[in-house]
């Protein structure tokens, strides 16, 4: 089964980006940020996720 959501989640947690979770559906993804996530962290997370799709 598709485990990319888990893999991206672990990568974002390792980068200390505060998230609630990640969803992956085909070539699209969604990151559920926690409120304290800064704009810089969000941009970093998008970059990490996009590289793993």
């Amino acid at each position: 089964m598709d485990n990319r959501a888990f893999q991206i989640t672990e990568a974002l947690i390792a980068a200390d980006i505060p998230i609630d979770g990640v969803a992956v559906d085909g070539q699209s993804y969604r990151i559920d940020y926690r409120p304290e996530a800064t704009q810089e962290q969000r941009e970093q997370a998008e970059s990490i996720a996009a590289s793993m799709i």
Partner: protein
Amino acid sequence: MIFIPGFGGSTDGGNMTGPASSTSGNFASFNGTDGKTLQDSGKSSSSFANASHTHAASDIASGTVATARLGSGTANSTTYLRGDQTWATVTASETVQNSICDGRLTLTSGTPVLTSSVTAATTLYFTPYNGSKIALYTGSVWEYLDFSEVSLSLSGYAANTNFDIWGYNNGGTLALEATAWTNDTTRATALALQNGVYVKTGATTRRYLGTIRTTGSTGQTEFSFGSSASGGGAAKLFVWNAQNRVRFSATVNDSTSSWTYTSASWRSTNNSTGNRVSFVNGLQIETFTADNSQVAASSPTTQFAAIGIGLNSTSAFSGLIGYINAAVGGHSRATLSALGVVGLNYVQGLEYAGGATMTFYGSSAAAYLSNGLNFNFFM
């Protein structure tokens, strides 16, 4: 001079005297005690009431007794004689069963029970179902009205609003009208009971047929059974019948391949309100059932995951949760059986991560997966 046989005359030698004039038809009577003087009594045969008589009923052997002798009121071809000796109009109240209401509210003409989703509906129908007769209150009695399918245009009806639907006799033809609610769970005009049947308060000729809800688009409603979609294909069951309810089932699947959740708190399945069944409920009289099925797994360090069902909540579960041991992963199911509130309700798939990253799999993750939210209700 008048002569009365036995009271004088030529053989008795007595003379009777009378007044100089008299009223024709009046009886003569003695005036004084001499036995010879008469006067006009002032009384005629019409001055005296008939003496009462007693007869056996069998004495009436022919003819017809006048209806006025049988009872008060007007006797004619539309009245009958009641036990209290009153001529009364024949009304339907003696025979009408006011529970009769042979129709259902629906969104497709000629289809009282929908078997496929209808979205963006702009017309509501009341379609004959198991008959074509409805009992309506006139304000004093119940009467039957035969009807064919009638419709109600929803044009201009406010979005995201509940409406009660009433049926009434419009000059011999069944007609529909609607009353908007104050908010999602409060009627602007309360229901009233007339002989055990719900009618409109202050307008008892309006029989309560059910409640509908408009979607986010003005003048539109929906009755959809859910679908499989990324983020969940939400179902909207927005037509509730007060009579002749039948059981409907809606299923919502999330086709997302997989998603993760890392927090020890309840949230919507896949963080999406698409994993939801919304429904309108006119009366709090029947329970619904729902179950939420889900497959999840995680890394060995994760403790557990749980799934649940929120009743009008995205952050708290109702009913029984499903538990998934994260170390081995697997499938679980949450269930809920409850009375919804009157008005708008929703059941929402929920998820919870016990301590670390939990991965949930959608219905497209594998050919053998069919997770989702199932809902059953009589509507």
